């Protein structure tokens, strides 16, 4: 295994709280929450959502998820200074998603059911929509490509896979993160599970009543430090560790004792060589569902102590599913770089059962390490440690 540091040399993000990092920081600073009704498709459901407004618009030949991920990849490559150097390196692409992996076009299926002879237009779109393959094609990279479909931890796990590829010397540079579009299937599905809120979500609040769905993409470029230095790119951000552990408990509910998340955190911190006290903040998964926040909050207090600074950014973006880990990795890195994190939007009233509360205002932070966590359907728990050095 290769030793040496892995740096973050570029970042890109798009969500309802901004189409790039600058817009995102403006939204964070203002505390604004860009929620709306569903406008992207017809539905009877009235749940509020976090849509990305003003995308250039799909030509109908490609998925919206691709438009989102291409936007974030373009930003990340520009930031890394790699746009015109892609042929000089072994570039891997590892991206997480949920929606883009599913052939779930209702029009196609309805036509098939009714006539037995449906047009394959949406199937073609789906076949061109494997996220990693599509990005690889778009930018002309020729290294490894892999799409992670680990439900809501996909984005974090894609970064973890990228880290593994670099350590195994399978790539020089990896473009990783996640992307997902707002889609009717998860909207109806999460609604059926009783996981959606009728109002703005309130992560970790005593009166939290469920999640709001969102969409977006978050992408980081990670590479071996020596390669980054050699090509003259300066960066102060690092990926230091990654942990992934299964609950082996239930398809949709987290393990009540939180030991899966605890194991993921322990592994990530062990790889990073840090103690819990060295984490200056945690960007929590914080979906605002009663179960997730209870388990996650208890684990955070148990592992990091009651004085931990933590937040959920889903109050600004909604739950972006397979994109969440990528988006929140960018937010975590930006928080370390900028020296502040926003208030945990939606939180007002502490929940005694959780016993720990997120930050309630824009909060200055100083220190070297921050952690982003993701919990997922099926009991996946993931954590990454990001460092500023």
């Amino acid at each position, binding site marked *: *295994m290769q030793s040496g540091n892995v740096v973050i040399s570029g970042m890109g993000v798009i969500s309802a709280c901004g189409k790039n990092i600058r817009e995102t920081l403006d939204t964070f600073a203002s505390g604004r929450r860009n929620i709306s009704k569903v406008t992207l498709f017809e*539905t*009877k*459901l009235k749940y509020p959502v976090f849509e990305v407004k003003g995308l250039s618009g799909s030509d109908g030949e490609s998925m919206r998820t691709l438009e989102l991920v291409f936007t974030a990849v373009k930003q990340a490559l520009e930031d890394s200074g790699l746009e015109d150097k892609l042929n000089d390196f072994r570039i891997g692409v590892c991206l997480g998603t*949920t929606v883009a*992996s*599913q*052939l*779930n076009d*209702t029009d196609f*299926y*309805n036509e*098939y*059911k009714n006539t*037995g002879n*449906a047009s*394959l237009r949406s*199937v073609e779109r789906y*076949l061109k929509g*494997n996220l990693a*393959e599509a990005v690889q094609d778009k930018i002309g990279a020729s290294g*490894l*490509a*892999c*799409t992670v*479909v*680990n*439900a809501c931890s996909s984005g974090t796990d894609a970064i973890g*896979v990228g880290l*593994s*590829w670099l*350590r*195994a010397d*399978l790539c020089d540079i990896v473009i990783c993160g996640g992307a997902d579009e707002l889609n*009717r*299937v998860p*909207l*109806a*599905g999460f*609604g*059926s*599970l*009783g996981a959606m809120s009728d109002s703005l979500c309130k992560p970790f609040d005593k009166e939290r009543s469920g999640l709001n769905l969102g969409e977006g993409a978050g992408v980081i470029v990670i590479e071996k430090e020596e390669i980054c230095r050699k090509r003259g790119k300066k960066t102060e951000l690092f990926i230091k560790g990654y942990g*992934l*552990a*299964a*609950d*082996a*408990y*239930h*398809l*949709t509910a987290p393990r009540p004792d939180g*030991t*899966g998340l605890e194991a993921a955190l322990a*592994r990530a911190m062990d790889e990073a060589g840090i103690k819990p006290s060295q984490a200056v903040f945690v960007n929590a998964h914080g979906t605002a569902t009663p179960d997730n926040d209870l388990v996650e909050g208890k684990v955070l207090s148990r592992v990091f102590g009651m004085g931990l600074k933590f937040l959920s950014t889903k109050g600004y973006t909604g739950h972006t599913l397979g994109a969440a880990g990528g988006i929140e990795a960018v937010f975590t890195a930006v928080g370390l770089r900028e020296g502040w994190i926003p208030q945990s939007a939606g939180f007002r009233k502490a929940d005694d059962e959780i016993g720990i509360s997120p930050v309630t205002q824009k909060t200055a932070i100083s220190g070297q390490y921050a952690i982003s966590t993701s919990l*997922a*359907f*099926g*009991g*996946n728990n993931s954590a990454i440690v990001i460092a500023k050095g």
Partner: protein
Amino acid sequence: MNIAGMGVVFNRGRGVQSLEKALKEGWVPPGDSTYSVPADTLKDKSVLKEMRRADDFSKMACLAAYDAFTDSGLGNGVKSSLGIILTTAFGPHVTTFRFLDDILNYGDDNVSPTTFSHSVHNAAASYIAFMLGARGPTLTVTQFVYSFHQALIIAQAWLLERRCEYILVGSVDQCGTVMEYICRQKLHLAEDGKIKPFAFSQTPCAVPGEGSAFFLVTEGKTEKHYCSVLAQAVGTPDMYLLDSDGMVGDERCYLKIIKGGIPVTSYTPIFGSMLTVTSFSCAAGALMLKNQQSYAVPVQDNPHGLNLCRMQGSAAIKNISCVRYGCKNDRLEIFLKQ
């Protein structure tokens, strides 16, 4: 890394014995137009006792993973360091379409939460973790052509990082009626039910299949050992095992890799056409290396005069290269070594 255990679920049954039997028997026509997994194969109350709500996609994966774990003989002691990597090309689309049925028939506000939760790609891997009580890293990935290669590459990297000591790595794909329709529209389906893997046609024939194949892999030495496996080519093999199954289009490129005289085989006509068929080819290759036996190619049409494995019998094989070509003349190999 080493293969210490295998499990397969396919049209001809379940388990290594069924695989060996099928390889010995050779080609049989599909029951209908596809090589689907018979419903009886998925009935195992002892293994699936807590999975009554699971769909066939998850059941296939669980049974193959369970069999691979059991086949290894490693026992419960290794579960604390057991990872799971599952790969699929299309995921549980049959369940996704069932969920779309709910939406179309009853509306967005009257859908089944159970169907939704099973339509998520990683449901199968989660069931495997739950069934085995495995609490290590659990990952599901998807690619269309090189799914299994990618899973193996991650497995290699995880073992190198000591993320876990043992990994169940495998594939699962399903062929429902909608997928069959799509295959019928996009591919050339073989009217006689025969995949001809050595025709290397520009428009090859496919016969859709489904199933799951799992491997228990580790870097360490184990009592049971099939072969070692590497997700890359290493030198010249004793035998090429081709994945030509009519799924990816123009197969003329396969001719490029075959070097004079090296025996060539393919068992895709036994498994059916699947984007994840590579995992089944690896299972057949691993069995050949362990048993030091070659199995006759099930469909022997040989218009290019290749040195095919025509007979079953003992064979001194040290290494096998499993070859898959993609849509752009690209190629990946998995190398199996005795």
